[in-house]
């Protein structure tokens, strides 16, 4: 979106629109970032992506509280195959581009509702992408499913995820073969 278009649109909102400070105006013209690789600078963005995938809810913190961004950077760097690292990084660039063209904001600066809307859209793309690959001998992961699987594994193996979102018993001491389960009871963490 061009600055002039933006100002035009603002004027359509009426009233005292020209009181917006200049600094904020310039930040609204967002240019996507192109990364060659993943660095710790991406942690805030990955925290925000993780938090959108597993948000904080009434009772329990979300993925951001478990330092999911740092976990993702570590896991991609240490444990991913080079080709999956590339898919992850390309995906992050893609997502950034999406944010720039569609929202003219970085993902970080988008409203929570916009973040969810965007990632739900990407999830749909990933679902279609997955369907198309069914039956292939070697399937390629969609970048969003890499974000998502890391968010899930990192969250539920974190202390918060294991002990608050699920139920962690480090030393059960006994085995009870059959106990009642009611809706709302948390599953075991391990």
């Amino acid at each position: 979106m061009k600055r002039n278009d933006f100002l035009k649109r603002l004027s359509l909102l009426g009233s005292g629109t020209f009181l917006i400070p200049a600094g904020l105006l310039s930040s609204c013209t967002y240019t996507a970032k192109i990364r060659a690789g993943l660095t710790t600078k991406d942690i805030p963005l990955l925290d925000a992506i993780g938090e959108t995938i597993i948000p904080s809810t009434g009772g329990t913190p979300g993925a951001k509280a478990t330092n999911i961004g740092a976990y993702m950077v570590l896991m991609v760097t240490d444990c991913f195959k080079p080709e999956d690292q590339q898919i992850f990084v390309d995906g992050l660039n893609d997502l950034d581009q999406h944010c720039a063209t569609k929202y003219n904001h970085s993902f970080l600066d988008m409203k929570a509702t916009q973040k969810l809307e965007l990632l739900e859209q990407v999830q749909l793309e990933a679902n279609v992408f997955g369907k198309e690959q069914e039956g292939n001998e070697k399937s390629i992961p969609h970048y969003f499913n890499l974000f998502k699987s890391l968010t899930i594994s990192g969250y539920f193996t974190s202390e918060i995820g294991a002990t608050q979102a699920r139920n962690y018993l480090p030393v059960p001491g006994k085995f009870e073969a059959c106990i009642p389960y009611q809706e709302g009871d948390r599953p075991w963490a391990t």
Partner: protein
Amino acid sequence: MSSRIHSININTKGIKENTYDAIVIGSGISGGWAAKELCEKGLKTLVLERGRMVEHLKDYPTANMHPWEFQHRGALPQKITEENPIINRCYAYSEATEHFFVKDKEHPYEQTKPFDWIKGYQVGGKSLMWARWTQRWSDLDFEANGKEGIGVDWPIRYKDIAPWYSYVEKFAGISGNKDGLPQIPDGEFLPPMEMNCLEKHVKQVLAKKYNDRHLVISRTANLTTRHKDRGPCQYRSLCNRGCPFGGYFSSNSATLPAAEKTGNYTIRPFSVVHSIIYDEKTQKASGVRVIDTNTKESREYFAKIIFVNGSTMNSTLLLLNSTSSRFPNGFGNDSGELGHNLMDHNYNGGVRGEFEDFTDKYYSGRRPTGTYMPRFRNFGKDKQTSFKRGYAYACGGSRNAGTELSKTVIGNDLKDNLTTLGPWKFSLNGMGECLPYHENKMTLSKDKTDDWGIPLLNIDAEFKENELNMVDDMISSGIDMLEQANFKNIEVIPKNRNFGLNIHEMGTARMGKDPKTSVLNGHNQVWGAKNVFVTDGACMTSSACQNPSLTYMALTARAADYAVNELKKRNL
């Protein structure tokens, strides 16, 4: 234990100082038993272990770690998995257990056909990481070769080993139920662990719909009560990290401390045995040549009897490498069978399904075992035309968090889904007997040696038509049972494990009745060198379909008893 470890940099001492009553090569599940039995019977015993010391409790660095305390939450870095493609295929290899596995580069081998060799070089060997399932064998197994004319007949029958099963079960501590099934005879059990409600349901349905499908709780070397100052099991199911409660049987927690208690026990880690020394005059072994794995220094140790318990592949490698003018083709290899008849189980057929009921039922605690369906093929009235012998199933019912929906949603919907229980699932994983084929073999590499100057192994083995046909039946019978029990979303579990990866490698120095066709006699004595006993997986004449470690333990205790009696009678 460490008080008795020899310093690694001593120079060659006199023969007398290096002489013991008995030498045990290897400290894993069978070596631990040999050490305990020989020490308890009063023999000064030297245990030679090629790996490092692992002391019970002290050397289990990950045993009490929470999932979030692992840097990669249990996963292994790409660099490590890339450098270790073989052990990386092992289910038990993870960030929590990697220190107990030999890295691929540390002891390479040649593969004429794909073979995954999973090794644990440390005091305790693989008894630290084993899966602890301990069903007895029966005469269905001991008689099969003889009846069918396959391989050679076992020189023993169930009655010969039954008292020794009891003997080792009583010490090890085996939990289990007396199920009265002849193909897995009942033993000396601690109280059984319980089946969950889905498993109980499946058991009942199968009992109604079939007359030969029996689902039982697997007999398992986890202690359901306190047993000989060990345990009980705390239901953490983190066994393969080493147990801080001594809740399962390992050499480290059980047999080696018992051996040490006698005052007759000496263990020397970092000691790989290069070869067995044969004495032409006495026609017996006089001792062993040992290489210190750190200094590469060579030393000799002497004893009246030698127990070879280095694990199947390494025991036979040692025998093949022990040549003399009497045994130019390997120690005890008059028959030409040494290195042949290598077996592993075939685990490549499995199925699973979902169950819609019992949504209001769950379980608490992590039971470190599963349920077991003993062999029903070619047993009783069943006759198969496409394969001989049969298979058992490792089975289990469980309930995990989340459903399929979690794959396609995010946000609150995803979080709700993954913090709620999904449906019950049940799986049946076939464990098939492998026939002994002469052409499935290991030989010494013609030109390559390891870091200690010992030839590398060349392994050349594959599953054949009988094993592959059995896999088809594991799958079709499994689907049939799940359908009969009203399971939904039934699917085949994709598996393509290489020979070796089921870590039940056995055979290659088989027991038999005739020195012309076997390497060991009915007491695990090497034909032609009667003071050498091989009692690990190498001695097996057939593979049955039960997990084999309990049988190695019983054979070892039996052979140790025989050896000491013979020694007393001055026959050795």
